[in-house]
């Protein structure tokens, strides 16, 4: 075993000219500027070469920058599993972008990731810090207000016994093994400044002072004043002292056993503009502290109980912070409340991994057990459901994993047998439906990903199911493969009358394939219903307009109050207006002497989704 000093010289990365003509778009063309940014501007290869030394052999096939480049591109494309990365690496454009001679299989990727020791993780953190500093140099901040860094921790429950997971305080599922990561967010840029992945049995504030010191090294410059904001889990002397030493500000919620008693002794002053809110300011020295610190208390009157009491009882919500800020107490209170945004980012970071689609499907198929809640299948409670009910269901969960050393026919024979007996003729039928009849006796090993996916669908319809559950069936497929699978799904629903329950994050695909949709965000059902009804009911419409002078049209339309939003891209105006205002738009353009080539109302599921979840419309 040797420490590999990465030598990127032998790898020649050929520049790619993306084609964006009307008829052709280079596959994954969007990654070309990303590659340019990563490899040329950030010098990612050099950063890895200088700072990361994995205990691997010198005769390795793939360089670290190729593997990590693939992971970065994969994440950008929504891949979350090693198999997805493998599929992505089969793309020829991506292979050229990363200088890959052949695809990287998931085992190779997994093995390399497993080489990551604590030391390597630290080294990798140095790499990301180096890259962050390069990006931060481009920032320009106002020095009038302090820049805010939020500290928080989060619990992520896991199944099985992954390395480092431990039982600790897990509010969502008591007793479940979990991780308890520590995170620092830079409020200005909404970037995750630093993270520590810790076992679930670690207390929130453990090592917070050291974590802070590492965060400081990642801050974009020391010319600004900094405010570190955290919840009560971080109320500890070590952290506060470290922040004071750095001469930065802090705002941390207080956690003390005798806090109520301490607050009750203070003199509360009313705030003239808010009748139900009072504040107090005082200095207090907790046990183990070398000097007292400033505490700010806010109490908000919730209710006054008079019934059954000799004297009226005032019920307050108390909030207490330790801080070295000079702002007014109410401002401090509001400054802390803004921290809720940080909580949302953490949720977003956690939930980017999955909105809950695959988990829902896995629970439905009893591949994992739900920690809470219930569901019924064909009218039966899931706890009492006989496994025979699964004979009525066909399913394909993500990747179609078959026995590669067996033929497609043999694989189907086995699954038919386990489905309660299917005539041999049916196997030929399903192979015919998915157009694999001529390759039925070949080993699955020799199949392409698209063929495996079709075989996956074949196995799901073997036993004439009443419902087919498909989890991201077009994942990792090229455009042709996606089209084939889409047509197959439509044929199954149309010709055979099978209900298909499909999960996907490709809303365009869903719109073209499904009659009904349920949108899940961060594990919660946001909306469900008929796709066309949902789109019809919404008062959100995009109208695409092509005119002779789009720039001038855009600037005129922006001034109109009845228009919600105007964006200009590729000489096409995308105008957000209610449907009833569309004639007015036409009139407006004609009256202003524009030559209108087309006005196309467009309400896509994607736009609907983004509006629904308050995300920006592209």
């Amino acid at each position, binding site marked *: 075993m040797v420490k590999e000093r990465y030598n990127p010289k032998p790898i020649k990365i050929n520049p790619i000219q993306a084609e964006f003509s009307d008829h052709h778009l280079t596959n994954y063309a969007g990654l070309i500027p990303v590659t340019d940014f990563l490899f040329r501007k950030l010098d990612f290869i050099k950063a890895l070469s200088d700072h990361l030394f994995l205990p691997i052999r010198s005769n390795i096939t793939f360089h670290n920058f190729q593997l990590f480049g693939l992971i970065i591109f994969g994440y950008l494309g929504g891949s979350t599993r090693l198999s997805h990365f493998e599929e992505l690496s089969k793309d020829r454009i991506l292979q050229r972008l990363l200088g890959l001679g052949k695809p990287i299989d998931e085992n190779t990727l997994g093995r390399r990731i497993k080489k990551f020791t604590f030391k390597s993780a630290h080294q990798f953190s140095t790499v990301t810090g180096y890259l962050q500093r390069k990006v931060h140099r481009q920032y320009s901040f106002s020095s009038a207000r302090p820049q805010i860094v939020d500290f928080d921790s989060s619990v992520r429950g896991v199944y099985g016994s992954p390395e480092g997971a431990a039982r600790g305080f897990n509010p969502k599922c008591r007793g479940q093994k979990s991780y308890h990561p520590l995170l620092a967010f830079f409020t200005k840029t909404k970037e995750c400044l630093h993270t520590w992945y810790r076992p679930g049995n670690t207390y929130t504030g453990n090592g917070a002072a050291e974590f802070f010191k590492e965060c400081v090294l990642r801050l974009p410059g020391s010319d600004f004043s900094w405010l570190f904001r955290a919840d009560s889990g971080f109320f500890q002397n070590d952290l506060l002292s470290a922040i004071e030493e750095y001469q930065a500000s802090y705002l941390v919620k207080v956690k003390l056993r005798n806090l109520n008693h301490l607050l009750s002794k203070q003199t509360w002053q009313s705030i003239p503009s808010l009748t139900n809110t009072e504040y107090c300011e005082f200095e207090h020295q907790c046990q183990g502290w070398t000097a007292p610190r400033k505490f700010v208390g806010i109490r908000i009157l919730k209710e006054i109980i008079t019934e059954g009491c000799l004297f009226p009882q005032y019920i307050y919500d108390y909030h207490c912070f330790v801080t070295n800020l000079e702002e007014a107490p109410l401002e401090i209170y509001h400054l802390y409340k803004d921290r809720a945004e940080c909580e949302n980012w953490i949720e977003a970071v956690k939930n980017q991994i999955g909105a809950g689609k695959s988990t829902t499907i896995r629970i439905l198929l009893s591949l994992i057990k739900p920690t809470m809640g219930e569901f019924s299948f064909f009218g039966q409670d899931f706890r009492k459901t006989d496994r025979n009910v699964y004979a009525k269901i066909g399913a394909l*969960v993500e990747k179609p994993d078959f*026995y590669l*050393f067996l033929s497609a026919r043999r694989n189907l024979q086995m699954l038919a047998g*386990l489905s309660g007996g299917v005539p041999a003729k049916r196997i030929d039928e399903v192979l015919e439906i998915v157009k694999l009849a001529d390759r039925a006796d070949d080993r699955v090993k020799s199949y392409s990903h698209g063929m495996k996916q079709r075989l996956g669908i074949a196995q799901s319809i073997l036993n004439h199911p009443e419902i087919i559950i498909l989890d991201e069936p077009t994942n990792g497929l090229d455009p042709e493969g996606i089209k084939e699978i889409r047509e197959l799904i439509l044929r199954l629903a149309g010709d055979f009358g099978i209900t298909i329950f499909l999960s996907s994050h490709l809303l365009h695909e869903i719109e073209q394939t499904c009659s009904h949709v349920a949108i899940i965000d961060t594990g919660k059902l946001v909306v469900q219903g008929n796709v066309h009804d949902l789109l019809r009911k919404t008062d959100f419409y995009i109208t695409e307009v092509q005119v002779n002078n789009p720039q001038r049209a855009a600037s005129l339309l922006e001034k109109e109050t009845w228009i919600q939003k105007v964006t200009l891209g590729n000489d096409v105006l995308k105008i957000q207006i209610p449907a009833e205002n569309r004639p007015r738009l036409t009139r407006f353009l004609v009256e202003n002497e524009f030559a209108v080539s087309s006005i196309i109302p467009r309400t896509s599921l994607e736009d609907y989704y983004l509006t629904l979840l308050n995300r920006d419309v592209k």
Partner: protein
Amino acid sequence: MTLLLKATWYEIIKIASKWRTYIGFITIAVLIPVIMFLVRMYGFGVQDNALNSMKDSFMFVGSLVNGLIVSYFLMNVLWVHFPFFIVLVAGDIVSSEGAAGTFRIWLTRPISRFQVITAKFIATFVYTAVIVCVFGLLSVGLGILIVGGGDLFVFDKGILILSQGEALYRFLIAYLLAVWVQMTVASLCFLFSSLTSNSVGPIIGTYATLVVMFILSVLKIDALKVIHPYLFTSYFDVFFAPFSDPIPWREIAGDVGKLGIFIFVFYLISALSFIRKEVTT
């Protein structure tokens, strides 16, 4: 029950479709005839070895070497060497599917996890039984064919002379017991296989456990005697018991029962672990 039988049959098909399954059979098929031919040509070495401790007290006239005595000596490979062929398959049977993700499709069928793991366990048992029986048949059969038949002289705590018919009967019992012994190794490896997602770990783990346990069970240290009953290797010599006179049925039954407990415990832990196993990633 039907599903379990079908699943077991499919597991056997899967085992039979893998190249690694045949490593053991090919080795046995090549090695045994070679040994038998060598013994036929240079058989005196084996005879000397066997008679070494007896030659001061007895005088032997003629050749005592025949196929049965060679087969009897070959049974010694069942201690440490033969388990390699067992773990090669047993170590792969659960872990490889966990890694390949094939459980995902199987478990969306009406079959339960318990049935899947039980089917795999039964298939492992079938493979173990088949390979041990093939070893026994080739060893005894080729021994008689190539080296020749005759009475079996067993040199253990004295001399026991068994007629060919009686010896074959004892071999039959011995190999049935050997299946049980090898099944203990297989079930331990099966347990390791159900806990991991690669087949190398279970193979090395089982072998390491086996070697350590052998060392502990052969060391005649008083302090270690306390743990001897808890080491399954302490009962491994049960397949030599049928070559005693009279056959110690009570002792054999005791040892078989104890090994059975080990097998059951290993299977139970495997099943419990598999029921909770993460099969979605």
